[in-house]
């Protein structure tokens, strides 16, 4: 007879306690339940986490309103004349909250359906096998468990002097519920969040200045892509200040004056609101990490490739264990962690398979290595590029800015990375995600018939270009 373990150690009340019900925690909990683990999720706020309540989802709802408004304003370009278009900004915000609420309820249902208990309260470690849940006004709960998964996420980072007041100085959190549309807004930080808000406010008609201390918007992203985005932003009237640092702020009724430092010089900008989008900090405090001796690295919980912390019964996933700070990365890490606990997985996470997307217009999406990274790794790189201005579909849609850039290993045609800027980029990147998972080469991309006219043809054309045989460009 042959046996296979299907459920964990009987010495504990639970097989798994998950702290945090965001996109990492709730997905991990459901996967654990599927694997037969008795699972509890502890959440102090609402199921769904930042992504669903205060991030990805409500911001995309607002973005949709912004895009619609922008399209209506530009209707004449398409032969559609509309008059008296106006923005009901409180309604825009209200709709985004409704979308978030609906999805949060969905997460609660999914947990229930999978027999995962959701416990309201704040979890902290008491030992490698025990989580204490503090519930306001009640006796704390004690949960004894074989494994713990920390999925507490991150919160907005602020800068000294830029204390958030929710009126004049906001982070993305306040901005998502602020029903007063800014007339002039200065955005500190040119990363993904800063760029998305810059686009949204600009589309709604605000005067927008975006300040980034690095040489380019979206630091770390392919340089050509970042330059293209800067060009597109400037065309929309957004003031882009790179290599510029926040220096100081002075508040007045109804306006703020922000001092900025560029190349040693100080210049000032006046705005009625400031959005601070300078990154996120891990929520790793007050978790009892020191009690069980879990190591941190600049506030992020240190983990191995299986998401295991320095205490082997405790795993950490998502934003709290460090970059990439992406919801889908957290989900994948959660699944990997739980499968490792159950002894069902040997391989860790391949972060080069995790795509990253920025939802401004034009959209930015990427997966795998950049050109520079590929060269540094010793690959002989071939670049395949196709601009959307040569795409029939893009021209017909009236959005022909941007391009697809494929980074290819010349030796075997392996697709090392892909960087897309343009309308529809965030959906197009999925094809390359699949191609990389399947280890497809340019031959498979060019050998796949792409329907005409679609934006996806641009991927095929970029692959042809990498092979030195582009047809439409």
């Amino acid at each position: 007879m042959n046996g296979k373990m299907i459920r964990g150690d009987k010495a504990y009340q639970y097989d798994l306690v998950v702290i945090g019900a965001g996109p990492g925690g709730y997905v991990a909990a459901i996967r654990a339940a599927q694997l037969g683990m008795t699972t509890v999720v502890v959440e102090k706020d609402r199921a769904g986490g930042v992504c669903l309540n205060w991030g990805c989802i409500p911001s995309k709802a607002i973005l949709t309103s912004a895009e619609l408004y922008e399209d209506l304003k530009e209707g004449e370009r398409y032969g559609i004349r509309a008059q008296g278009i106006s923005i009901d900004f409180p309604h825009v915000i209200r709709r985004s909250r409704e979308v978030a609420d609906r999805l949060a309820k969905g997460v609660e249902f999914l947990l229930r359906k999978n027999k995962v208990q959701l416990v309201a309260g704040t979890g902290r470690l008491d030992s490698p096998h025990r989580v204490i849940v503090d519930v306001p006004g009640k006796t704390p709960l004690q949960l004894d468990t074989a494994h713990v998964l920390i999925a507490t996420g991150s919160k907005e980072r602020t800068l000294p002097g830029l204390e958030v007041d929710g009126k004049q100085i906001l982070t993305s959190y306040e901005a998502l519920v602020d029903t007063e549309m800014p007339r002039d807004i200065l955005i500190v930080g040119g990363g993904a969040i800063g760029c998305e808000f810059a686009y949204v406010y600009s589309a709604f008609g605000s005067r927008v200045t975006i300040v980034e201390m690095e040489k380019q918007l979206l630091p770390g992203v392919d340089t050509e892509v970042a330059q293209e985005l800067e060009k597109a932003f400037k065309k929309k009237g957004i003031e882009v200040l790179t290599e510029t640092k926040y220096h100081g702020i002075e508040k007045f009724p109804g306006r703020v004056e922000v001092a900025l430092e560029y190349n040693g010089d100080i210049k000032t900008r006046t705005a009625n609101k400031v959005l601070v989008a300078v990154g996120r900090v891990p929520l790793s405090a007050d978790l009892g990490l020191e009690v069980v001796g879990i190591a941190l690295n600049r506030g992020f919980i240190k983990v191995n490739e299986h998401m295991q912390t320095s205490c082997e019964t405790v795993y950490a996933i998502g934003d709290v264990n460090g970059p990439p700070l992406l919801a889908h990365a957290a989900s994948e890490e959660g699944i990997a962690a739980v499968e490792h606990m159950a002894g069902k997985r040997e391989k860790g996470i391949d972060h080069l398979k995790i795509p990253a997307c920025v939802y401004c217009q034009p959209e930015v999406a990427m997966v795998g290595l950049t050109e520079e990274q590929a060269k540094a790794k010793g690959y002989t790189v071939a670049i395949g590029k196709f601009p959307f201005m040569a795409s029939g579909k893009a021209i017909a849609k009236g959005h022909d800015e941007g391009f697809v850039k494929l980074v290819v290993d010349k030796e075997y045609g392996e697709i090392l990375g892909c960087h897309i800027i343009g309308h529809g980029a965030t959906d197009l990147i999925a094809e390359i995600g699949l191609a990389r998972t399947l280890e497809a080469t340019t031959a498979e991309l060019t050998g796949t018939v792409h329907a005409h006219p679609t934006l996806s043809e641009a991927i095929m054309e970029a692959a042809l270009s990498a092979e030195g045989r582009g047809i439409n460009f």
Partner: protein
Amino acid sequence: MAIEIVMPKLSDTMEEGKILKWLKNVGDKIEMGDIIAEVETDKADMEMEALDAGILAEIRVREGESIAVGGVIAILSEDGVGVTVGASPSKSEGVKLAVSVPPSVVEVEEKEKPIAEAPMPLPQASGVQALPIPERKVRELREPRPRRESHEATGDGERVLASPLVKRMAEEHHIDLGQVSGSGPNGRIIKQDIEAYLAKAPAQPSSTRASVGEPTPAPVVTPMVTSGGTKQTFSRMRATIAKRMADSMREVPHFYVTCEVDMSEAVRLRTALKASDRVQSDVTYTHFLIKAVAIALERHPRLNAAFAEDGRELKAEINIGIAVSLEDGLIVPVLHHCNKLSLLDIASQGNALVERARSGKPAGDDLSGGTFTISNMGMLPIEHFTAIINQPQGAILAVGAIKERPVVRNGQVVIAHTMMVTLSSDHRILDGVTSGQFLTEVKKLLENPVGLMV
């Protein structure tokens, strides 16, 4: 014929097992490998697999009952004889017939107890309450079967699962994919598998290198064993190191000579150089070593040579490689024409070279053309070690840490800074005395380091 199914020993410490659930009914046809029951052990709930095929004739231990390891829990009939479906129990105990739960049932309903009746079975820290414990669910797991670990030969047109990239790499390297184990979904061969195979497989038999009378070994494919532990797939660099080091150890007859070098003067000189504001670069002991070795190589050209098929190839240039460690690997950037460089040139060019190599941006010939290698582990408290020759070079110098040791000078025991250096030589082109003389030269040069400055 009847086969007894006994309670298996599913863990080291298991003495008895409880049948949680029968997944097959009396009368059901059972194939080898079918999951027939779920068993509770002292450690965990396990699935129990049938090792024989037949018809389930009799169930002797009911769900919820326990039995010692080795006890008969059911009878399997190979030919269906003795199956008693629907009949009343022939024995007074333990026979359960016509189980009412169909085998495909996925889940047994969960019975959660309301909070008010929550049991408190576990020791509690004071001031805390327990959550109700949901009963453990019993569910059939629809997980994919474990993947196949290896592939049989492909000769007979059997389909090999391999990624397009792998197929292209296999074509290029003339590899029969039937020889490669796949670690992807369903045993699909993916890039890391073929890279591991390439790193492991012996080089293509080359007619010139094969020694006479020795049969060429057939490529050995070790099946991937995954019993505990983790398998780390080689990076390209690691794979190259693995192959080159194994090749060198296999082909090159190494011998080693060691001596102690008094570095007291060198320590003093280095301190002086450091203090001087006219010296821009950080002059390290590695630079002293490069300079000393370069001079010694000029005087002992046989050490600056490579083994060739029918002789010894004396190199015209003196290009010294410096072993630099990286995360899980090493590289050997090469400082060219060392005999033509002053100590300060060696320091400034050497520092820039190592920096370029470490940051992954080596220039043109930074990694090629070496004629001799120095491996300095002096940054660690290593007394001495031996290094593997970096083919096609003829020798490599392994340098230990400088340490205060008692030495005898003029009949007096004094404390001096000394280090141990060990030269590995290719015995096909070098003999003990030649290498010994070379090492003596290096020792002398380092012990009177002022000579390195002029």
